[in-house]
């Protein structure tokens, strides 16, 4: 873990969670692991922000939860994307692209 950790910008956590769940339903721990791995161990989501975010997304109807057996045969809470969640993910993705492009543009000109 030689790499410096990067703080998640405000609002991106939702996007990351939605993106992760777009592949397959996952439980909380697996989500944080997946984000950690996929980001080449740059991003680490602490449970202190992960679970409130999951509960918030569930309340908004973008993800739904069900209890299922995990790979080590324990009961775990799995979250999956809803239809509304998928739409939201597309929106947020395009917003994010616009934002990063714009930021890159600004950074490039200075």
């Amino acid at each position, binding site marked *: 873990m030689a790499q410096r950790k990067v703080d998640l910008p405000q609002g991106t956590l939702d996007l990351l969670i939605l993106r992760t769940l777009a592949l397959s339903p996952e439980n909380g721990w697996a989500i944080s692991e997946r984000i950690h791995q996929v980001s080449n161990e740059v991003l680490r989501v602490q449970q202190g922000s992960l679970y409130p975010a999951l509960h*918030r997304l569930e309340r*908004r109807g973008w993800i739904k939860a069900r209890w299922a057996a995990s790979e*080590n045969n324990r009961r775990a809470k799995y979250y999956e994307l809803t239809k509304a969640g998928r739409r939201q993910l597309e929106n947020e993705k395009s917003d994010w692209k616009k934002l990063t492009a714009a930021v890159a543009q600004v950074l490039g000109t200075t």
Partner: protein
Amino acid sequence: MFADLRTRLRALFRRDAVEVELDDELRYHFDQQVEKYVASGLPRAEAMRRTRLEFGGADAVKEECREARGVHFLEVAAQDIRYSLRMLAKNWKLSAIATLSLAVAMTLSVLGLSVANGVLLRPPFAKTPQQLVTIYTSTPTAEFEGVSYPDYKYYRDHNRSFSGLAAVPTSISKGRLVHGGRDEMGTTEQVSDNYFAVMGIQPQLGRLFTAGDDEQHSPEAVLTYSCWKRWGADSHVVGQTVMLGLQPFTIVGVAPKNFTGTVFGFNADVMVNFALATAPDQPQTATDRTNRWFFLVGRLQPGVTAKLAGADLRALSAQLAADYPAADKDRTALLASTTVLPPDTRSTGQLISGVLVAIVLLVLLIACANVANLLLGLATGRKQEILIRSALGATRGRLIRQLLTESLILCTAGGAIGFALAVAVLARFSHFSTSLPVFGGFDFATNLQPDGTVLAVTLAVILAASLATGLAPALYASEPNVAGALSGEAVVGGTRKHLARHALVAVQIAVCTLVIAGVGMFLRSLHNLQQVNTGLSSRRLVAALIDFQADGLSEAEAEKLYEPLNQGAAQLYGVESQTLARDFPLMDTNWAASEIAIRGASDAAHQHEQIPGTVVDGNYFQTLGIPLVAGRTFAATDSKERPEVLIINQTMAQTYWPGEDAIGKEVHVKDGDRNATVVGVVADSKYNSLDEAAHPVIYYALSQHYQPGLMIIARTSGDPRLWEQPLAQMLRGLHLHVDLPPFTLDDVMHFTLLIPLLTLSVVVALGVLALLLAILGLYGAVFYSVNERRREIGIRVALGAEPAHLIQMFLRQTAVIAGAGVAAGLMLGIAATSVFKSQFFRISTVELHVLLPVAAAMMLLALAICYAAARPWIRMSPLDAVRHN
């Protein structure tokens, strides 16, 4: 949206299940993490330690999850209320003090609001009262005057704006009512025949007046509900006769319960129509356009605005002014909204209610500052507990919400008690009777019961009070300072929240100083009034009213009674002197003014003078003790056949004939186009009220001006009250009715001072209350601030500080705060005095006689309270002080 609702409902109703799930979910995460570390080669114990470190407080995460799920507001509120009640019960003494002081202040607030609402806003009892308007007339010299009967008829028949226009009296009259076996004094009001129709009032029994009755000249009466009840609630009363004095009226019906008459505050007994008053043998009222004894009440036609109606009336006024310039020149009819107060008293009503509401709100402010201070003190003591809660995951918003819930509970309890008390007080005084000197008993009906408006304002006040009392303590107590509190940091003076609390105390002291200064002003004003020289050297005067007209006596018959009356009074043992006169001094009845011209005056302005006058006999001045300065008093020879003579007061002599002898001078009296000669000048005295300025007065001779009603006034050699009964018996001996009991000069003086005294007692009561609340607040503030600094005190004592020095330190601090408060209060007092100066008697803007003692007393009081509150802590041993927890 649906998902949101489902999550919230689940959170609310299946709270335990949700909590268990949350637990399970977090535990799974924890276990997985541990397994991961174990798999990477760490020993299990080390893996658990590391995971726990990474995790931080699981409770904080749970709290955040609950919030993210939108745990239902109601659930939190219920929790807050449960917790608040537990905290308040634990500190029940403090809660009781806070609730009680709020309850007292809220009672006063609701009373003040109800009075202001009832007097200024509430419409009278009528159908769709918002369509009603009141009409009065105004001239450049007189702002509020009534309308005469012939003018009323003109407005009624020629306007195009009103579906009905009725006339109501500008004053009530008191007289004998004879019905069945009863013979009592009652209040009567004369209204036009269409009055009840315009108001849209339905009868309780029988019928009310119908339009056209007045022209029929059939005298009819309608009983008010309260009078009907008093007379036995006889269902066969319709068709019976009631005598008003000597005039029979046929009772046609009974008015409904909520109708108490047309004049606010007075409970009328009998309403009568104009049948007699406007009969052809009464030219005074039927055709005289200067006899303006009505206000008009009109119901606007649908679609007609008040503005249009106003223009309509102005056009009619202009026509009347052109047709009858003598009476109606420059006179305009004006519209006012119809409230229970007649238009001429509305500004006084506004002033009184305004002052009342202002004082009451000040008391409420003190009470709120008090409760805020108590809660702040409580919050200080709870800092530890609150820190533990926030360490366990309570967010700041949640803490603030919970602390605000506490003050909301206190304020709601105080407000509910206050509202209930106010309703009880108003119900008790909605009908009451009192006996006034001279005028006899009066029935008052004040419909001031709080309605929706008052309730809404009260709720708003409760909410505002909750925020005012709770916000500062909540913000202070929830300030995140975990490290400081857990280490048991000693609080040393001079922090920001001390400033806030000191400001609260200063505000309390300022408001209290203001209210006490107000009490002082009232006392001083009353003192000044009592010191006024009435100009009457006799104080032992007794008088009785004689009404020749009501006794059915003609002028000639009445004049024959003058001699027996004088004889009868003179023969009463101990009567030193007696007189017959039209008016008794200081009864606050404006003496009728007549227009006169000063003969031979070079100044053109002296050609149209309105000078008030009265009618007296020759014994008047001797009996009342008014010195004759020049000339003579009236003599038996000043008969109607002889040239008219006058006696004037000194101010009049000096105003119109400065440096000359007024005796023998002539004036021309416009009314009756007659000349009169001044034969005497008497010293000035007080005529209508104690606070009037010196003004010219003319005395006319009784022997030249017959009066249908008179006073017989006697000077006695002892307590004049002992002569009340003999005087009444003497009158009855001459077959005269004595409807109103005889009265003395002292009765009249007390009556004159009645309003100032009543106001004073209300203001004193409020002042005492404000003072008590402020004392409580100051004591609490000092007590808690010393308590909070006990560690510091202990350390200081341990380092060798003398208790006396510590006390001095606290006294010095209090002196600064109290000084600021008193100074601000004095400034406010001076500002208020300059606004209300006209309401006081001989009070200057900066009344040092009042302000200095009040300031000194407030300062001393503040220091004494500080000493009392701080002493117990200072006397504690330093070890106790430091250890005490």
